[in-house]
Structures are given as C-alpha cells and as structure tokens.
C-alpha cells in the first residue's frame, strides 16, 4: 500500500544529533528501570509467571482443606503459621478466615497479577512492536511507569498477607456490604488492613493497565511498518489491539467503584450501604442511602470485559502458532478479525449475566440473556476457524503446538458449558456452585494458561536466541493436560449435584454433597482426587521452571527464525538489539503466507517483495474464471 509510505519530515537537526549519541546504559537502566519494550516485556513475563505460581500455591493449600477438612496439613503445616501469622493455621489446621483470604487472593492474584500482566503486558510488550516492525513502543517512559505501577500494586497485595487480620477475605469480587465491614474493628489498622490494602493495591494495578492500554493502541496505530496495512497485521496484533480497548474502557468504572469502596471504608461514607444495616447484631452508624447493587454493576462492568482480556491474547498466540505449525494460512483471517472486534464490542453489554440472582426483572434479564448468547457467535467463529486451519495441514507437533492444539478443545468445553449459565432459568440452579468454577477455569486455566505456555515456548528463541528443551516441554505438557481435566471435569458434576463454591469444609457437613454418588464417589469424596491432581499438576510445573531458566544459558542455539515463520518479528536478530531491527522492515504481503505454490520454501516472510511472476501466478486458473 502506498498510503503508508511515510517519511519523517521537519526533523530538527539538533534533536537528531542528540538522539544518535550512543552511550552504554548502566545495569540499573538496562535491566531494572529500562524503557526498552523487550526488557519491560520480560519483566512483566517473569512477574506474571511468579504470581501465577503464587496464586496456584494458594489454591494448593485450599485443596488440602477441601479434601481433608479440619485435618492438620502434614510437613509444611508446621511452618506456615510462621509465615502467615499464628492465627492462620494453628497446629497446621486452616481457619475459616484464612481459607477465605486464600480464596479471595487466589482469584485476585491469578487474574490481575498473573494472567493480565503475562498475556496482555508481557506478550504484548515483547511481541507487538516486533510484529509490526517498530523500533519500540510509542511512549517508552510510560511503558516503564506501567510496569512499576504493577510492581507497587502487586507488592501492596502481597504485603496485605502480613498485616494484622490477614489479606482480604471477601471473595475476589469484594461484594458489599460484606467487604465494607470485613477486616475492620478491634485488632485492625484503619488503613493497613487486608481489604483496604486490596483496594489501594488495585488502584495501582488499574493505573498500570490503563497506561499500558494507551501505549499499545497508539503503538499499533502509529508505528506499523511501511506496507503493514490493517489487514496485513498478524492476528495476535489484532487481539492485543481489542484487548487494549477493553482494558482502557472497562477498567475505569471499576476504579470508580474501588474509590467509592475505599471512601466507604476509610471516610465512612455509604455509597454501597443501605440504611438500617445490622452488623454482628448491632446497628451500624452510617448514613445509608447507598446501594450494594451499584457495586455489583460497576464491578461486573469491568468483570465481563475482563474475561475477554484474559482470553483474547490467548486466541492471538494460538492463531500464530497454529498457522506456523500447520504450515497453512490461517483459515478465515478476515472473519477472525471481525469476530474479535464484535467480541470486543459485545463484551461491554453482557455484564449483568453475573447478576441473575439479584432479581433484575424479566425485561433486563431478557436483554442480557440475548447479548450473552450473541457473543457466543463470534467466539464459535474463531474456534471453528482455528479447527479448520488445521485441516489438511502438514502439522508439526512442536511443544508450542501441543499447547495450542490442546487449547482448542479445552476452550471449547469451557465455552459450551457457559451456555447454560447464560440462561437465567438454568443459572438460578447452577449459580455459585462448582459448575461455575469448572466453567470459567476451563476457559482461563487449560484455555488461557495453555495459550500462555504455548507463547512462552514459541517466542522464547526470539528473546534468548535459544530454544527450550523439547523433551522436558513434553514432560511438562502431558501431565498438565491430564491433571487439568481430572481437576475440573468432576467439578461440573459436583456443581450439578449442588455443591456450593464457598464451602469451607468442602461440603463435608452438607447433605447435598453426601447423599448422591457420582461414579461411586459422593460429591465430597470427589474433592480428594481433585486435590491430588492439583498437587501432581504443581509437580508437573517443575520441569517447566527448570527448563525455562536452564535454557536461557544452555538451551540449543538456534537461528533468527527457528520455527520458519512468516511474521516480521522473525526478521529481527535473536535476541533483538535496542531498536530491534537491523534494517527497517517493509511489509509486502499478508501475515500467513505458508505453502505458497511455486516457491522453494514453504513459508514466505512478510518482508519478501512480491515478484512479478508471482502476481500472474496468483490469478485463478483459466478454467475457474467464468466466461
């Protein structure tokens, strides 16, 4: 396209000269307070992976309590109280408050400190500028500020475990009025308590995401290489573009809600508190006049787009890897792009399907039910296009491809089991059961996280110049896939049997989880195999961790394009230097030109000019042209 021929004009000679002075950056500026998008991407990536591990560890602790309620946790149960405080696990037995803290923080950490920094910020930062042929992000300093805002927010969240009373314990959704009164009163600091720190930490996390989103969108609009038109963008760039818009527009309402809840807790306002509240048997002195539903609306106005923030980057990663490893152009590129745009739009008008239990009235319910079902259409288009992309391909089952192909059925299960929840009549029964947990974990755990693992294995050679070990990648993949399913499939059954998601005793004390058997085990008895699968899955991550760090120094050395891929990031050296490309890239063709007929190689990179012969070859054969 000629439209994108662009030359910098009006360059001030002085500014030019100043920028061209090369001086070596010290360690701190190069690796810690760096403005290079690749270093920031890696910082985000490592932070995100560490938080994923932490969030998963919290869950592994909870799984003990669910499987063996009231029993002392062997071995580590003795020293956990020394870390989290004496009141959390006396004699290795978990207290209900501590269980609630773990649950609330598991959700918060996994979503906002694990998956978002990894899927959006890490991959977006590292890959997007390379894929669009840009030297860096448009606002490198803002980019650095965005990482450090996340760092501060994450540190505050971690600190909240160690304040008197422990971390937030009102669920990751922090529903009011519960959240307004928890972690308050005697023994709690008015500001440095779990729930208040959760709110303050969140403000930093939201700031981080907003800065990132502004930067990403501007970068994609402004810094595309010459010739890289919108319809030549790799699908991953499109998915990051839509994700950035979701973060940009959905997070601020939650920020508003967080500010109001902070006011409720610190300045004793009543944004979310109705008049006449009685807490612990005593009426509370508040003005009232607030509405708990207001919090839910504002929370889910973020909460639902957030689901797509979690899944869209994974779609993007999987799309790149599927095309690359099936050696075929991605099937239905345009419909994929339009689907992802439609998802982005619709995700803003489905939020109240999280609130069927609030009695919104039939008209409102009908609206949200309709939009919720509508959004499944573009999602199914995307998934179908991915499956069709595999058809007739000469598939290379590399480690990233294993994760990417596993993503497809896992996301499929997660998506399809969501449909009953979209109908409010069915949801009234399934609401807040393990069914819901199984549904959204199929989307984000074997769905998104598999996408992320695939991305780590896929772009690792670009970041380091070395490949991660193939064998240990497979040792990581197979147990993880099996355990994921052993963990989450039975939860559908537990949920349909009526097990509630917030039972501290795993359902031991409740009839519904004990009177029916599912394949010979009662709902409660299923907890033990699930928990064992979770712990085994924890062990299965060890090969990944070792492989990851070992390969940085000792992995097999590879060339700049080890996967024989087509997109622009593979034209840069591995690892790319500051400024990324040796020659400023120019794009001449679409992103997935695999197996082009008449070529020696089965891949044609985006920066390879179109030859005159190719133009004629591309015309359809004469017998197919209607007379």
């Amino acid at each position: 396209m000629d439209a994108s021929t662009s030359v910098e004009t009006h360059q001030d000679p002085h500014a030019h000269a100043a920028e061209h002075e090369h001086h070596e950056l010290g360690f701190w500026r190069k690796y810690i307070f760096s403005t290079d998008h690749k270093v920031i991407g890696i910082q985000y990536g490592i932070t995100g992976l560490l938080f994923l591990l932490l969030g998963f560890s919290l869950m592994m602790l909870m799984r003990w309590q669910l499987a063996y309620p009231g029993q002392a946790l062997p071995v580590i149960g003795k020293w956990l109280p020394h870390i989290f405080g004496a009141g959390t696990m006396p004699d290795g037995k978990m207290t209900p408050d501590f269980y609630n803290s773990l649950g609330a923080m598991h959700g918060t950490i996994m979503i906002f400190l694990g998956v978002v920094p990894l899927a959006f910020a890490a991959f977006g930062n590292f890959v997007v500028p390379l894929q669009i042929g840009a030297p860096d992000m448009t606002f490198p300093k803002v980019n650095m500020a965005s990482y450090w805002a996340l760092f501060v927010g994450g540190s505050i969240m971690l600190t909240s475990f160690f304040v008197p009373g422990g971390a937030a314990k009102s669920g990751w959704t922090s529903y009011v009025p519960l959240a307004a009164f928890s972690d308050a009163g005697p023994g709690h600091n008015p500001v440095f308590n779990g729930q208040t720190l959760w709110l303050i930490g969140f403000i930093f996390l939201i700031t981080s995401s907003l800065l990132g989103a502004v930067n990403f969108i501007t970068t994609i609009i402004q810094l595309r290489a010459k010739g890289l038109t919108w319809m030549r963008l790799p699908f991953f760039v499109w998915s990051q573009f839509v994700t950035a818009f979701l973060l940009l527009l959905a997070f601020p309402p939650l920020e508003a809600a967080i500010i109001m809840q902070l006011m409720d807790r610190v300045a004793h306002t009543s944004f979310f508190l109705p008049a006449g509240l009685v807490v612990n048997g005593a009426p509370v002195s508040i003005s009232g006049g607030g509405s708990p539903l207001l919090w839910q609306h504002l929370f889910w106005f973020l909460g639902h787009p957030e689901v797509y923030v979690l899944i869209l980057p994974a779609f993007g990663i999987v799309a790149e890897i599927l095309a690359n490893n099936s050696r075929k152009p991605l099937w239905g590129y345009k419909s994929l792009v339009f689907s992802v745009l439609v998802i982005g739009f619709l995700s803003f008008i489905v939020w109240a399907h999280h609130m069927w239990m609030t009695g919104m009235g039939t008209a409102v319910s009908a609206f949200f039910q309709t939009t919720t079902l509508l959004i499944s259409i573009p999602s199914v288009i995307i998934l179908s296009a991915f499956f069709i992309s595999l058809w007739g391909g000469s598939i290379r089952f590399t480690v990233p491809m294993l994760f990417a192909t596993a993503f497809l059925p896992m996301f499929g299960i997660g998506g399809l089991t969501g449909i009953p929840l979209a109908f409010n009549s069915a949801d009234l029964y399934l609401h807040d059961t393990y069914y819901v947990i199984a549904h959204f974990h199929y989307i984000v755990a074997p769905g998104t996280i598999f996408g992320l693992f695939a991305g780590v294995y896929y772009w690792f050679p670009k970041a380091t110049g070395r490949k991660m070990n193939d064998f240990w990648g497979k040792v990581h993949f197979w147990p993880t896939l099996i355990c994921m399913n052993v963990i989450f499939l039975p939860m559908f059954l537990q949920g349909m049997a009526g097990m509630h998601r917030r039972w501290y005793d795993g359902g031991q004390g409740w009839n519904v989880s004990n009177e029916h058997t599912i394949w010979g085990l009662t709902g409660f008895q299923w907890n033990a195999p699930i928990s064992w699968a979770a712990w085994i899955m924890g062990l299965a991550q060890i090969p990944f961790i070792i492989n990851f760090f070992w390969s940085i120094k000792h992995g097999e050395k590879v060339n700049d394009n080890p996967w024989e891929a087509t997109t622009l990031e593979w034209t840069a050296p591995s690892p790319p230097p500051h400024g990324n490309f040796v020659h400023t890239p120019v794009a001449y063709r679409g992103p997935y030109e695999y197996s082009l007929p008449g070529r020696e190689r089965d891949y044609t990179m985006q920066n390879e000019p179109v030859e005159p012969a190719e133009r004629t070859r591309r015309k359809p054969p004469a017998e197919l042209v209607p007379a």
Partner: protein
Amino acid sequence: MEIPYTISTRPDTGLWNAKIGIWLFLASEVMLFGALFSAYIFLRIDAAPGTWPHGLLNVPVGTGNTAILIVSSVTVVLAWAALKMRRYRVYWWYMLATISCGVIFLTVKLAYEWPQKFEHFGAYIKPDALGKYEKYLGNERRAEKGMEPRIEITGHLHSQNAKEYEVALDPVNADPDNPVMDRPHFLPLPVTDKIATIEKEDVERATMFLPTHSAYFASYFTITGLHGLHVLGGVLVFIYMWLPVSKRLYQRNPEHLANRVEVSGLFWHFVDLIWIFVFPLFYLL
C-alpha cells in the same frame, strides 16, 4: 534509536503519537467520571424522601469558580496559539494566567468551600420525634402543599453535652414556614443566631457536613476531590512547561513544546468539562 512520529504526523493517520495517546487517555477518563456520575444518578434516584439535600452549596462561589476554569481554558488555547506563532514571551504570560486560574480554583475549593462545609452541622431526627421539632421543620405546612418532609435540622454546632446538642440554626430551620425557604437560594443565607436544643435521644444520626453525612456529600466530596486532583495534575504539568526548562526545549524544537502544550491543553479542557457537569449536578439541581 528514535521513535517516529513524536513530533511530525504520520501521513496515513494524520496524527502524531501523543495526540492519539491523550485522546485514548481521555476516553478512559470519561469512563471513570462517567461511572461516578452514574453512581450519583443511581443514588439520587434511590434516595429516601427528605434525605437528598438541596441548596447547601454556595452558588455564587461555584459560579465564580466555573468562570475561572472557563477563562483558563481560553488562555491555554491562546498560549498554544502563541507558540504556534513562535512568540514565546506571549506564551509565557498566557501560561502564567492558566496556572494562576488553576491555583485560584484549588484555593477556593480547598481553603474556602470545603472547610465551610466541615464546620456545618446536621442532625437527622428520628421519625417518631419529628413532631417534637415541628417548629424547626414546618412539616405540617409542607404536607399540605404536597412537599417532601424535612427530617434534618442544620446549622452551626454551638455546644453539646451528654444529652443534647445546641445548634445555631440555618434560616431554613429558624423560619421553616416561610415560603421563601421552600426553594434553594442563589445567595447563601447566613446562619441565624436562633439557638435550638436537640435531645440526643431524638437524633437518628448527627455529623458535620463530611463525606459520611449523606450520599449527597459522599458523592460531592468524592467527585470534587477527584476533580481537584486532576486540576492539581494539570497545574503541575503546566508549571513544568512554563519553567525555564521549557525555554530550552522551545529553542531546540518549538514544535515539540507546542505539541506538549496542545496535549496537556486537551487534558485541561477535559478537566473543565467535568466541572461543567459537576456544577449543575451539585450546586443547582
């Protein structure tokens, strides 16, 4: 390494980077304040009769502050235009005017308007004790006229002991049956010297006019507070672009400084726009 389009425009988009950046940022700000204003609407519609106060804010002062912000919006554009015409001296003065307007606005808000509220006292009377304070509330006449009942007595807290509050009444409670008191006043009426004694056991809840007083003051202080932080942010950025360091940037590349002023000017207009919503919602309606 150099990032393209920081100063000149990209031909196919016709924009330089920061201009897109600031519009995106403003989009997110719209969502932030939009959510707060939605909350205001939600709370106001839901408010029980008599609990949403009217006419408690100082309208002339608010009007003055509105004018100051509008003037500053004009001066910031003139400052930008002066830079475009490469007249740094003129720019410097217009920028100083803009900064001064921002500082005056904040001073009025923080040193006058807010403290005035903090000194004011309000006591919500229990429903079964309302009759006892009829002479301060005038509810019989209001019921005849079909108006919402008054349930709060306001004024300056004179003194209090374990059993009662002594309040120097606001005119509305000093003379409740006067038809003049049925609607808010443009010019605020001073607190009278009529003292009322209110027994604490008749009081549902009594506070100063703090965020905790009511949903109205909660949203007033939250929204104006957040808006004030935005004004402060804008002022700090303007000061940075007004200090001698800006002269050096101007000499190196005047267009760069002009772009910076344009971007922060857009932000400043947005901050003014928010105030244009705040003023009628809290002062007039």
